[in-house]
């Protein structure tokens, strides 16, 4: 368990490529090719792109669920997938299907128990993330009574329960209502303000454009554009989370 001498990047992708075998002929189909990215602690990277552009492949490689065919992925200086890297990663998978008979709190206990969180902090952290996720009242209900949005928020809670330094979120806004999406955007900024690096994939271009420090646009497995908001959008405004006019109206009507 060697500690790198100096960690300057929270997330690094160096010429990352992933291809999958096709049929029995020995041919391979590339999912991602030549992807190079860097993200510092405290920054938010939004990965945008159509379905099949390689967003989930990239996040899975960073989470250590798949190994690169070429290139390297590193988390806080450690190879992605190593025990050291996984100890500092929080990952939200694309699907939020968990054991339906279990309660939300029980599932978070399970996830926290498998993390490197000190046992004395587990209960307090679970309460904190349940509160953030708005699941405090439903915490002791079985998950088969949860709505899709509640399951998604529980998925987010498990990704954050062990206070990871790097947070990887695959389509985190999927299944969330406008209020939930705003809360998510605020949370992502809060995480960055705490010094955590956040990488998330999204189809919600406008929201991603507002809250990200860096934006990467993927298409057919290739990096089409990458840079800061200023470089790509010409915006010098600090990333902020605020409701759009229609969202403001919606929330006003909903909450009076």
């Amino acid at each position: 368990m060697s500690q790198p001498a100096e960690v300057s990047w929270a997330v690094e992708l160096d010429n990352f490529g992933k291809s999958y075998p096709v049929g029995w002929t020995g041919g391979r189909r590339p999912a991602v090719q030549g992807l190079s990215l860097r993200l510092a602690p405290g920054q938010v990277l939004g990965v945008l792109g159509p379905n099949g552009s390689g967003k989930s492949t990239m996040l899975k490689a960073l989470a250590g669920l798949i190994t690169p065919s070429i290139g390297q992925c590193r988390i806080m200086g450690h190879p992605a997938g190593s025990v050291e890297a996984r100890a500092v990663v929080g990952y939200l998978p694309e699907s939020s299907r968990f054991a339906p008979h279990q309660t939300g709190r029980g599932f978070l206990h399970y996830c926290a128990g498998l993390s490197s969180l000190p046992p004395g902090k587990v209960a307090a952290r679970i309460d904190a993330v349940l509160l953030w996720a708005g699941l405090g009242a439903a915490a002791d209900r079985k998950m088969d009574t949860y709505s899709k949005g509640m399951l998604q928020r529980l998925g987010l809670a498990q990704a954050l329960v062990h206070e990871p330094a790097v947070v990887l979120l695959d389509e985190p806004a999927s299944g969330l209502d406008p209020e939930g999406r705003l809360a998510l955007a605020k949370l992502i900024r809060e995480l960055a303000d705490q010094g955590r690096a956040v990488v998330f994939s999204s189809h919600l271009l406008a929201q991603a454009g507002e809250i990200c420090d860096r934006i990467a646009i993927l298409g057919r497995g290739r990096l089409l554009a990458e840079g800061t908001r200023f470089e790509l959008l010409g915006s010098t405004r600090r990333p902020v989370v605020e409701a759009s006019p229609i969202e403001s109206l919606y929330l006003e009507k909903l909450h009076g």
Partner: protein
Amino acid sequence: MAEARSNPFPASLRRVRLIASQTLAEALHLRLAWLLVLAGIMLVLMAQWLRDFNFGASELKFLGDFGLGAIGLMGTALAALAMAHLFFSDLMGATAGCVLTRPVRRWEYLGGKLAGVMALLALYVGSLGLVLACLITMREAQLGAAFQPLPEYLQACGLLWLKLTLVSAMTLLVCSYASSALFASSAGLLLAVVAHLRPFTQASGWLSWLRLWPNLALFDPQSLPAGDNLTVLGLLGLVGYWAVFILLLGGLASYVFKHREI
């Protein structure tokens, strides 16, 4: 991370225990498991009505043979189907992604899954064994005859459990590379059949390579009807044989699963 650096083994065991208890809790909510338990109980109780077809053996011996056979038959199905179902429900849902992106080693995950299914099988053999014991005791009282001392009966149930856990380990090996629960459970059942037929390989030379595969016939509780019990040394040898194959199958599954992409 500090925990992993200073004292990795107890931390590993803690994670295996957590995954095992989660797996057992999921298994106890499986409708399929309850269906097989119910079918097993019905088969054991059917021995009472089928006792006339005893092929000349004593009635109590028939009850014991038939009951243990029924527990073994349904248990084999439970071992293969529950393992495949529990493994793939994690993999196809989000749970495997949440667990394997934490500092959990792949062997710890598989070890926890196997331990959870082993606990389920212990509950299954224990409960159905109890039903069979009650049936035999009732019939003993009605006939005024003694059949089998308790330790030998417990030994027979223990051997049955060892056999069923080997079936679940074989299925786990298939799960480690298979892409569907249907394939994994079918292949697990097929491997269990091959392992039951292992004694026939002694006679035919071209099947001798199958001797590498565990011989499940060794765990058949033949001592129960015959009354000639296994010696302590023989029993320990059998447990050792079981442990070697559990480690081999589990180790092979872990090696394959380590390189699997989720």
